[in-house]
């Protein structure tokens, strides 16, 4: 020990800068970063020079030019005379829409199947087992084609329909139709009422938890919340003179043959491309989520259940208060990557004509030829979507993590 201490104490005094490990380390790191920066600069400047030399238009000016092409689904106002920028934005919203709906259904199906995998019932267990094994071992693109082309051929054609839900919903080859709420002036109050109800629920829940911690008395928070969130907007709706009505889809049975079927733009409609894509993404991702959920639950030691029972907790609170909080620690991180996968997989939409970001951007790319700009937009959008999703899931994971005392 003594010898070593002496060495290290004397070394800096004697050694030149070249032999100083700290300086050398710093030198190489600066060199590496410098090289990377130079490399990046080189790539960018070379690209710009090449584009100019080949007379290829570049820059962002094209975003303001009129697009001139239509789309089958736009969540915001869009016509052929809207700009290219608007077209890309429409595609972005469509991607977001299919991702959010897909994640919602994938989570529900995934949790149900995952829990069913552990069921005591042999039939339920086998069905969920085969679901997982079949679905996750067939390529997603094939599943999308299956849902699109197989289902397209199974439903009635454009001039026919299946109706269900008391004649409120209709299905045919052009999509799923339903009533669309139309908001009239004054309907904003219904929205305000909903916000107030949600805020009130939040504070009541906080108060109820505090009181339970202090006194042990429980409060029926779920029923109260349900009552508030449903009743308050309904009361406002009645008080403001019912400023909202439902617009039903219009099924035309006479006139020119191409005008028969559902009238374009009346009522709410989900296009078949959206239905097929959502179904494929949700069912595919759910198979992976099911395995994550099963693994998470199995990761919680059975002793925890027995301990909870010994403390006098019944089955339902045992699952809710003991098993799931511990399972969630294991479930959330891989669940996040499944959500990210689903969002990124949604770009397969282009195969079945769902106008998502890649499809709309691709059309813009082809009309303008500005590949680098469009691809930069694609990458930036998917990167931000993924980062936002992970940030949210990390925050949620932190909240769910067990607090060690």
């Amino acid at each position: 020990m003594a010898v070593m201490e002496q060495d290290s104490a004397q070394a800096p005094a004697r050694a030149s800068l070249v032999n100083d490990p700290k300086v050398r380390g710093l030198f190489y790191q600066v060199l590496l970063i410098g090289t990377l920066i130079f490399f990046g600069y080189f790539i960018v400047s070379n690209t710009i020079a090449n584009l100019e030399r080949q007379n290829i238009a570049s820059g962002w000016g094209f975003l303001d030019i009129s697009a001139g092409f239509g789309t089958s689904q736009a969540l915001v106002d869009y016509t052929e005379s809207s700009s290219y920028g608007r077209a890309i934005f429409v595609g972005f919203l469509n991607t977001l829409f299919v991702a959010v709906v897909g994640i919602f259904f994938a989570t529900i199906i995934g949790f149900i199947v995952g829990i069913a995998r552990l069921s005591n019932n042999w039939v339920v267990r086998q069905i969920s087992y085969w679901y997982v094994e079949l679905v996750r071992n067939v390529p997603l693109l094939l599943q999308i084609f299956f849902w699109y082309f197989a289902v397209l051929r199974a439903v009635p054609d454009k001039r026919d329909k299946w109706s269900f839900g008391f004649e409120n919903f209709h299905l045919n080859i052009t999509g799923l139709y339903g009533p669309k709420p139309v908001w009239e002036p004054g309907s904003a109050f219904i929205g305000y009422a909903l916000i107030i109800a949600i805020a009130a629920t939040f504070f009541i829940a906080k108060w109820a938890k505090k009181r339970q911690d202090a006194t042990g008395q429980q409060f029926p928070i779920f029923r109260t919340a349900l009552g508030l969130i449903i009743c308050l907007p309904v009361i406002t709706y009645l008080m403001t003179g019912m400023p909202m009505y439902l617009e039903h889809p219009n099924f035309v049975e006479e006139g020119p043959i191409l005008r028969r079927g559902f009238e374009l733009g009346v009522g709410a409609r989900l296009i078949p491309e959206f239905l097929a894509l959502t179904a494929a993404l949700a069912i595919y991702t759910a198979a992976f989520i099911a395995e994550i959920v099963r693994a998470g639950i199995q990761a919680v030691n059975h002793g925890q259940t027995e301990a909870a029972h010994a403390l006098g907790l019944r089955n339902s609170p045992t699952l809710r208060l003991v098993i799931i909080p511990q399972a969630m620690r294991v479930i959330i991180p891989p669940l996040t990557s499944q959500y990210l996968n689903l969002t990124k997989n949604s770009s397969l939409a282009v195969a079945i004509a769902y106008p998502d970001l890649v499809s709309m951007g691709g059309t813009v790319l082809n009309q303008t030829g500005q590949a680098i700009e469009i691809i930069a937009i694609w990458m930036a959008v998917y990167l931000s979507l993924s980062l936002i999703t992970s940030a949210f899931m990390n925050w949620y994971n932190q909240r769910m993590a067990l607090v060690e005392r």
Partner: protein
Amino acid sequence: MTNKFLPLVLGAALGATATAASATTLEDIKGKGFIQCGVSQGLPGFSNPDAQGNWTGLDVDLCRAMASAVFGDAEAVKFTPLSAKERFTALQSGEVDVLSRNTTWTMSRDTQLGLNFAGVNYYDGQGFMVRKDLGVTSALELSGASVCTNTGTTTELNVADYFRANNMPYEIVAFEKADEVVAAYDAGRCDVYTTDASGLYAQRLKLTNPGDHMVLPEIISKEPLGPVVRQGDDEWFNIAKWTLNAMINAEELGVTSANVDEMKGSDNPSIKRLLGVDGAFGEGIGLSNDWAYNIIKNVGNYEESFNANVGPDTPLGISRGVNALWSDGGFLYAAPVR
């Protein structure tokens, strides 16, 4: 490690700069020994692999003709199937040397993409195909229709213009690949399939019952289809342009793959110049003087290519129409070899 890495990066950088200011396309092609030709992903009659996996079609023949002009060998060509969306990027980036993929010549493509159109090898126009049982006889009755097409084509824009100009509501369903458009139209997702008229005849063959469908008489756009090369290399541009001209001139002069050897002894000065007996026209485009002879010998003239791929005796059964020679009342008119 790092001091080895830096010269490597610098070397790569210099190398890349050198490629940027590179050799000509023709030198590159002679170096690698074949032409890389961008074609469609399968459009019968224009570029489609046959049962043996050989590419055939009117557009494919043009690439083979260029290979014959450069190498004297119609097989010295490799094909890259490209979607409508990928095609220009593939050509710009040098992945393909020539794009012969039923591509419409438009001003923006010619001027803003760094590309040059080397002529027109098929005069087309956009049409509509519908089911016969709809009873529709004119495109003006298509109000309210859902329309299937390919994404990333001029087709999408023409449909939008046409329906808007005639004040007809419509719904567009745009697919990435032609096969999916056909499948969706066949399944009844759309009332109408629209693309270039030649494409409609070709794709109709893929439907379950081709006889149940008809192409409406209206042609709603001008679609001059032709080969495309990168801008800035005039030598290669000339080769593409004159390969097409040679095929058309050969038809006009009656030179075919069958009689080209006899024709070498012809007294007609035009034929002598075309086949390289007189003059040194091949040298002017950086090739040997028998460049056109090789094209006609290996591939044939325009008429032979047309009849073999899309003509009346093929499943497509397209008549010459506007694609006849100017002397027969069509649009085909090639500058003379002189």
